[in-house]
């Protein structure tokens, strides 16, 4: 097994991306994700890669669009306000069926908000962000190890399903250091374009021209592309859902949480178990596709659900949908960069157990 190294979450993303064969990074400075850019700025020139500080987040996502069109693995990273600027680009990537990795290390909002950790871009990531009917693959890490692992997965899934993927982390995940074992399977970036016959790499006068495009002025054609895309989404939903279950076997209360709050909730669950409260947790790892099945299954056994999140109840809605509102879905939340303490979560769990 490879050695454990100590890294910040943001650095783990960058290194894992390089291992995954990404040699193109475009970004614009914004807290709390700037370490990704700093790491890439240092590393890319040494390995024949491209680091470019773009003039704006808008330019960055469009540079990503260009490289992805050329069939190569490419990424950008930003934090909440910057992701809003990338919204149009995300829609174009989705509409042109282009794979890419976009990292959002979330901070409190709305507006300029703050720079402390948040999960309040959940809706933006899973429901929209840009215009039109589309999805991003949304992966959400809960440790520095997952920052690395999910980065690799994000590239693989993006290529497999020809769609952009987003690593949706909260600021804590980006800033904290933990031991991490980096992925061992190094991807040779030169092998990637050959797997993408649709890429605009130049015809070499040997084939008809490839066009990367999201414009379809004939409504029936546009409708067809939408249906085809959603067939892919259906396959994604069926095959790529990921989640972690923790002490769910005999649970009567099901906590649902991601990222830093899942870590806090784990501490609270350990404490609650000591008090004899039968509580467990389902931690989604993919937010799109959302792990509806395990939640629906849990709904037949537990008395109630408790989402622990850093927003005003965004994932809460998806849990309600997943279980068809068959059980109460309550919430323990803090916003604006505040994080609930384990004691606060424990108190909320006790309330559920009553």
């Amino acid at each position, binding site marked *: 097994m490879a050695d454990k190294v100590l890294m910040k979450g943001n650095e783990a993303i960058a290194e894992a991306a390089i291992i995954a064969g990404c040699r193109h990074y475009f970004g614009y400075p914004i*807290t709390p994700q700037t370490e990704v850019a700093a790491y890439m700025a240092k590393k890319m020139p040494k390995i024949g890669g491209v680091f470019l500080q773009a003039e704006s987040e808008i330019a960055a996502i469009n540079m990503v669009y260009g490289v992805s069109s050329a069939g190569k693995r490419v990424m950008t990273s930003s934090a909440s306000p910057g992701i809003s600027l990338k919204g149009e680009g995300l829609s174009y990537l989705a509409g042109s069926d282009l794979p890419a990795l976009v990292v959002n290390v979330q901070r409190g909002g709305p507006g300029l908000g703050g720079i402390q950790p948040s999960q309040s871009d959940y809706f933006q990531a899973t429901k929209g962000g840009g215009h039109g009917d589309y999805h991003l693959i949304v992966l959400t890490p809960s440790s520095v190890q997952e920052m690395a692992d999910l980065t690799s997965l994000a590239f693989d899934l993006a290529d497999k399903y020809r769609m952009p993927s987003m690593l949706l982390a909260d600021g804590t995940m980006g800033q904290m250091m*933990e031991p991490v074992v980096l992925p061992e399977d190094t991807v040779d970036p030169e092998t990637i374009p050959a797997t993408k016959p649709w890429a605009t790499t130049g015809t070499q006068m040997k084939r008809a021209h490839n066009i990367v495009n999201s414009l379809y002025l004939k409504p029936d054609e546009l409708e067809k592309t939408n249906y085809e895309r959603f067939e892919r989404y259906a396959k994604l939903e069926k095959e790529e859902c990921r989640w972690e279950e923790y002490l769910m076997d005999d649970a009567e209360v099901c906590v649902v949480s991601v990222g*830093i709050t899942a870590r806090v909730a784990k501490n609270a669950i350990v404490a609650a178990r000591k008090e004899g409260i039968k509580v467990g947790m389902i931690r989604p790892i993919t937010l799109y596709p959302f792990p509806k099945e395990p939640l629906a299954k849990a709904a037949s056994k537990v008395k109630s659900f408790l989402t622990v999140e850093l927003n005003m109840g965004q994932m809460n809605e998806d849990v309600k949908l997943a279980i068809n509102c068959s059980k109460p879905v309550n919430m323990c939340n803090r916003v604006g960069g505040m994080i609930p303490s384990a004691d606060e979560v424990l108190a909320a769990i006790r309330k559920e157990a009553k």
Partner: protein
Amino acid sequence: MTYETIMAGFGGQGLLFSGKVLAHAALIENKELSWLPSYGPEMRGGTCNCSVIVSDEPVGSPIIAHPNVLMVMNEPSLDKFEDTVAPGGTIFVDSALIGRKVRRTDVEVVYIPATQMAKDMEALSLANMIILGAIVEKLRCVNPDTIETALRETISARKASLLDLNLKAVAAGRAFIRG
């Protein structure tokens, strides 16, 4: 055993770095750990802290609500964190910078004039490493000798010339505890 350490003071005192060295030492010893900084717009002079958890068990939340080790290098930090320390915990106070005494009676307190000691060693910026030496000597959360290895591996090439001084500072902190 789980050591939940908060190191707090002004930005520029090297608190994030001493936390990193402790975390790195834990990594070398193959312990479970997490390191979480406060981050903000202030680069120098503002309040600053980091949370380091070193444990034999996997780390749950990296956020520390009740530290059992507190290292403070300014009075606002002592004011902020004193009441959060778990009963039976240990507080390390830079007594050269903090005039008041710890009010809690259910914790152990080590007063160490680290900033004065650092000044005397002509290494003013290394008071953090003196206290780190004291922490590991007293609590053995990691083997104190591992700190030396961790320092060698952590100090950036740009500051390599400062390695010896850092090692001396750690040694001074350890000697202070041994008395």
